[in-house]
């Protein structure tokens, strides 16, 4: 059985609205953030209406209920990404926080001046800037694996950039700007062959394809709740047990300790050690509901549904005179970036919005990708599990309207 998109439509209240008073919303900006199903909102609402309590510290029932639901989500995440144990799962505020934690807590102490960190040319700013900051702090050097004109990582060049100075690799699974699905299993294997640990930025991947950390054998993996039909303000850092054991906490405070005296503080066990302070409890519970939701549909179904829509949209866009697709890798997730002769992406975005079609226009927090293709911005269409063939038709009609205006 595939994905019955007309059933899931009813789960997303935001889809029922009219844009600018006239046009049914056609939401094609899922790579920026996905809409949220009612199940997620209900779970968070339940926490705020009934179960509000702090976790890990109360003797009362509310605190116990909150703790149970919070910790249950850890198991939900573990199963979702095929991790060995719930102890491999650290809750963070998002992918950005997860990457920064690894940079400062795990990689920093391994670096001497002249050591190298390797990323690719298609990374999101969240997987560039933390490493640049780290290089400034340590004298390490950031190396960048090049990509070809289709938006594929050049594996041979990547392999050459793995040197005896390489101390860490951090690579995106799915490019948010191009849609490319990177051959990260091969990239991880090449790094491991040289004893180099790898972080996978899966922010764009978890909502578009099944992710299996055991099969990938990555040392760390990071993602956010809000691109996975869950709330903002919560994310995950997965780490292998031995990797987390070697990572220092970056934030100190409550809940991450066993005992505190002014002379000595003993850290809590892993993963609590990495969750200082009161975490986003409602958001973690909401993330759990989101994962339950997509799991019930099946990530494999979501993946093939979105790929189908992407291929239809890409073909139809390519047939419009003056349209050029940016990112034409044979292995792509549900993302189509494009530019158009005579019409700037910003203008495309405004005209599409005036017709109810929501897309992203800009550099997608991936300016080096734009520089690679010699453009300032693209218009980007990104699909979610609730998008339909009719959405693609609306998109194409709207892009044709842009052409009429700017021809």
């Amino acid at each position, binding site marked *: 059985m595939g994905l019955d998109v007309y059933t899931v439509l009813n789960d997303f209240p935001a889809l029922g609205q009219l844009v600018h008073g006239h046009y049914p919303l056609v939401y094609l900006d899922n790579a920026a953030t996905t809409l949220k199903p009612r199940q997620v909102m209900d779970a968070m609402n339940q926490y705020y209406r009934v179960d509000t309590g702090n976790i890990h510290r109360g003797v009362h029932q509310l605190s116990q209920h909150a703790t149970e639901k919070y910790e249950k989500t850890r198991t939900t995440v573990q199963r979702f990404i095929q991790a060995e144990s719930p102890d491999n799962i650290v809750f963070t505020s998002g992918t950005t926080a997860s990457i920064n934690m690894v940079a400062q807590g795990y990689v920093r102490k391994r670096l001497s001046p002249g050591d190298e960190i390797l990323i690719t040319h298609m990374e999101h700013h969240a997987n560039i800037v933390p490493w640049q900051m780290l290089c400034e702090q340590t004298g390490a050097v950031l190396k960048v694996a090049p990509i070809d004109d289709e938006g594929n990582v050049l594996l041979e060049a990547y392999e050459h950039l793995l040197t005896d100075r390489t101390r860490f690799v951090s690579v995106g699974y799915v490019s948010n700007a191009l849609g490319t699905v990177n051959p990260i299993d091969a990239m991880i294997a090449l790094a491991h062959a040289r004893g180099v640990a790898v972080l996978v930025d899966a922010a764009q991947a978890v909502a578009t394809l099944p992710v299996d950390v055991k099969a990938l054998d990555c040392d760390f993996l990071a993602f956010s709740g809000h691109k996975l039909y869950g709330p903002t303000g919560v994310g995950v850092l997965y780490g292998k047990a031995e990797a987390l054991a070697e990572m220092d906490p970056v934030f100190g405070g409550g809940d991450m300790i066993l005992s505190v005296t002014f002379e000595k503080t003993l850290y809590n066990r892993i993963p609590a050690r990495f969750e200082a302070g009161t975490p986003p409890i409602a958001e973690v519970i909401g993330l759990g509901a989101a994962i339950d939701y997509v799991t019930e549909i099946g990530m494999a179904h979501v993946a093939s549904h979105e790929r189908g829509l992407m291929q239809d949209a890409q073909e139809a866009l390519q047939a419009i005179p003056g349209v050029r697709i940016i990112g034409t890798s044979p292995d792509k997730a549900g993302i189509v970036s494009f530019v158009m002769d005579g*019409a*700037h*992406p910003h*203008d495309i975005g405004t005209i599409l919005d*005036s017709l109810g079609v929501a897309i992203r226009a800009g550099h997608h927090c991936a300016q080096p990708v734009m520089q690679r293709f010699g453009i*300032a911005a693209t218009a980007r269409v990104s699909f979610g599990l609730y998008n339909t063939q009719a959405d693609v038709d609306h998109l194409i009609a709207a892009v044709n309207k842009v052409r009429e205006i700017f021809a």
Partner: protein
Amino acid sequence: MNMTDELYQEVILDHNRHARNYHAMTDATHTAEGYNPLCGDHYQVHLKLNDQGVIESLAFEGEGCAISKASLSIMTDALKGKTADEAKALFEAFHDLVTGQAPSKDSDKSLGKLAVFGGVCKFPSRIKCATLGWHALMGALNQSQGRVSTE
């Protein structure tokens, strides 16, 4: 007229397609950059101010969306022969127009062709496109007086 037609009026589309004063200037007295990191719009505005404080000529170079380009094109036409103070007054009137603030009667008249940007106020995300070139121009004019450009 629907919302988009109100924004993309024929005059704006024409100035986007055939921008006026769209070239380098070798004898500019002032040059400043306008850059919007959000969308990548990037321009250089050149002007020549004479001894009497009158803007003798203006030009611009760069790339960006239709709104920013048309705005620069029309602005560089409108400010020819104006003093720096007149240019600032016109910017204030233009700013009121695109941010949807009630214009005073006088500024309404003085706007002339710039009035085609009246639809911008309904598109809050596009106000910066319309004002980008103006901010660059103000930056260029303020440089000579040793002041820092502010919004």
